[in-house]
């Protein structure tokens, strides 16, 4: 199968794809874009809630001081400069107060009004009036100090030691520990989640990009009629092999650049990532992802080339290759849905399923320890799939590339399989 003709085709494909300016720029731009987006979103997080203005109204004047002291020590006042106005009003008076403030809230001069009714001392239910009352980050920030105040008041006069009180005050703190085969059980931040997410997106993007490029190139060869000239020197099998390998090498090179960037960032001292999202990228993971991706590319590029051969323009091909796109898009969503809980049963199946494993397995590997036999099995299943469908794809490719004219029906494409080629 490998001879000077296939190598010549591979060389040409690499020259056209891997070493084209557009491709190099795009490949380098994507990690850059990820960093820019990441940076912007971190900055947005930091700036978003600064300098908000609130009114806090308590029904019971005796607890007003507790709020003032506790809030003045809280992060959201000291660091984020939230400004609180404090007052004490009965429920009826609060109605009027709220009416007065309504215009300010609507004009964004006031972010919101908290009302702490007497009943809150028993049931901890407080009220928040705002243009956007369902503000999760705000409730998360305020929950702890307010709960602390309630507890203080509730237990005041009850004979409890300071220790008991401290225990009661403290919330539950989840610390994630990753249990793996290694001896040590490591404390884990969100780094693996980020890595899994990044792998899913990068694999998804690269598959689409390389697949589409391969299809375009087949359509171009067919459309520009060059293919018959080529076939007078090279067999269609050799041409297809060369094109697929050229595309797969291009894709793996692209992925290597991207993963290399991640590896460099995660291990570099220059860019200090916060400890919660420190990435733990093992070289074995990178090698496996690249190998798995290479096989995946061969599989997908084979299918995309077949599609390119069936149709002779990009529009027809775009609608025709929907089923193949689905084989990329669905696994991508499975991989994303896995972030919530990597132990969902369908994830394990998807990570072994042909086609799907190309995206799902690396994403799953980043989150949990996947048994070695599953890693090997996923690769073997994809290889078996290649072995099973390539004779068909090759035949359709052969018939399709020399065919022009009206868009063939699927029933005709099936008939092609019966031709002797």
């Amino acid at each position, binding site marked *: 199968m490998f001879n000077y003709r296939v190598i010549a085709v591979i060389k040409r494909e690499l020259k056209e794809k891997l070493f084209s300016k557009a491709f190099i720029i795009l490949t380098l731009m994507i990690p850059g874009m990820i960093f820019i987006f990441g940076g912007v979103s971190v900055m947005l997080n930091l700036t978003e809630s600064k300098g908000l203005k609130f009114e806090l109204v308590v029904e019971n004047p005796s607890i007003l001081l507790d709020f003032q002291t506790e809030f003045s020590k809280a992060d959201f006042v000291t660091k984020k400069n939230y400004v609180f106005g404090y007052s004490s009003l009965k429920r009826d008076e609060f109605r009027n107060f709220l009416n007065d403030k309504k215009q300010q809230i609507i004009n964004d001069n006031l972010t919101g009004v908290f009302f702490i009714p007497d009943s809150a001392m028993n049931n901890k239910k407080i009220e928040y009036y705002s243009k956007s009352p369902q503000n999760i980050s705000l409730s998360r920030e305020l929950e702890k100090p307010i709960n602390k105040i309630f507890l203080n008041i509730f237990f005041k006069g009850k004979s409890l030691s300071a220790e008991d009180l401290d225990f009661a005050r403290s919330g539950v703190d989840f610390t994630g520990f990753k249990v793996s085969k290694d001896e040590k059980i490591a404390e884990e931040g969100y780094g693996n989640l980020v890595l899994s997410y990044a792998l899913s997106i990068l694999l998804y993007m690269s598959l689409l990009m390389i697949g589409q490029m391969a299809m375009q190139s087949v359509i171009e060869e067919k459309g520009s009629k060059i293919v018959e*000239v080529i076939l007078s020197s090279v067999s269609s099998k050799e041409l297809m092999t060369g094109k697929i390998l050229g595309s797969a090498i291009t894709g793996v090179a692209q992925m290597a650049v991207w993963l290399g960037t991640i590896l460099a960032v995660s291990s570099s001292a220059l860019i200090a990532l916060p400890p919660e999202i420190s990435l733990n990228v093992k070289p074995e993971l990178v090698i496996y992802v690249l190998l798995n991706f290479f096989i995946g590319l061969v599989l997908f590029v084979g299918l995309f080339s077949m599609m390119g051969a069936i149709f002779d323009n990009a529009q027809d091909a775009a609608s025709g290759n929907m089923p193949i796109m689905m084989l990329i898009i669905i696994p991508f969503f499975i991989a994303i849905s896995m972030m919530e809980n990597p132990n969902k049963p369908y994830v394990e199946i998807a990570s072994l399923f042909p086609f799907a494993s190309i995206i799902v397995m690396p994403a799953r590997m980043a989150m949990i320890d996947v048994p070695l036999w599953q890693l090997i099995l996923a690769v073997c299943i994809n290889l078996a799939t290649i072995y099973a469908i390539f004779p068909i794809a090759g035949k359709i490719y052969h018939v399709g590339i020399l065919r022009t004219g009206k868009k063939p029906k699927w029933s005709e494409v099936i008939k092609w399989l019966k031709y002797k080629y």
Partner: protein
Amino acid sequence: MYALEVKNLTKSFGKLVAVDNASFEVPEGSIFGLIGRNGAGKTTTIRMMMGIYLPDNGEVVLRGVKVGQEFKNQVGYLPEERGLYKKMKVLDTLLYFAEIKGKSGREIQRRAEDYLKRFELYDRRLSKVEDLSKGNQQKLQFISTVLHEPEFIILDEPYSGLDPINTNLLREIILEMKQKGKVIIFSTHLMDFAEKMCDHIVMIDHGKIILKGSMKELKSKYAQKNVSLTYDGDISFLKTNPLVEKLSDYGNTTGIKLKNANDAQQLLKLLVDKNINVKKFDANDISLQEIFVELAGHENGNNGKEVRNV
């Protein structure tokens, strides 16, 4: 000695039999014409000879050995539908085409540059193909067909879409190759060209070979009783003349089939008597077109299915 023998080639696409048991022989050093109307099965035959299609039946034998990759490397093939990689540079294109024929290195680069100089394309060797004019792209295509010094040149409908300058250029290349002793096979539906260029032909219609042999032999065989006439005036009276069996108008010339081969002189006298201005009177001559029509019926009477885009 035959350079190439085509034996019992058959190819069908579904129910359509594109080539039906075709056999012919291409002699060494000949310009060989594969002649027939559009859709007759010429391209399918050539594709089978090139190994692009696998025949359902039959084989192609190159100097006693069944053709394979070895033959492909010895052929320069110019298909009817030609094309080039638009984004590739001119010189790169030539080197790539030579490389897939197994020819690479400094020698082939030098030869490519020589050809580019000869065809006045040397200055454009680093341009992208898409930046060349259509005529120059055709020149580039010719060079890529012959650069690897093939033993066989196969041209499918070579004149379709060529401008007059390139038509002459291609003819020049063909004759040059013939002088070098190469075998040239071309398919065409243009009988005039075939008649001027070929020394051997095979005629194909509806996938079947209807005629084959050397041009000379075929002509002398079919030319008896035939007169080729170029004239001014009205010759409609001949239609009812007892000397004449059939009258066929081919535009520039008229073919007249006599009932008796010895009546040619009488016919000439008749024309002169009737004040017809005879410009050319060629007894015992027949055009390829006439032979084709005689064998395959009227050109427009296309009663069968034709092969297209398969």
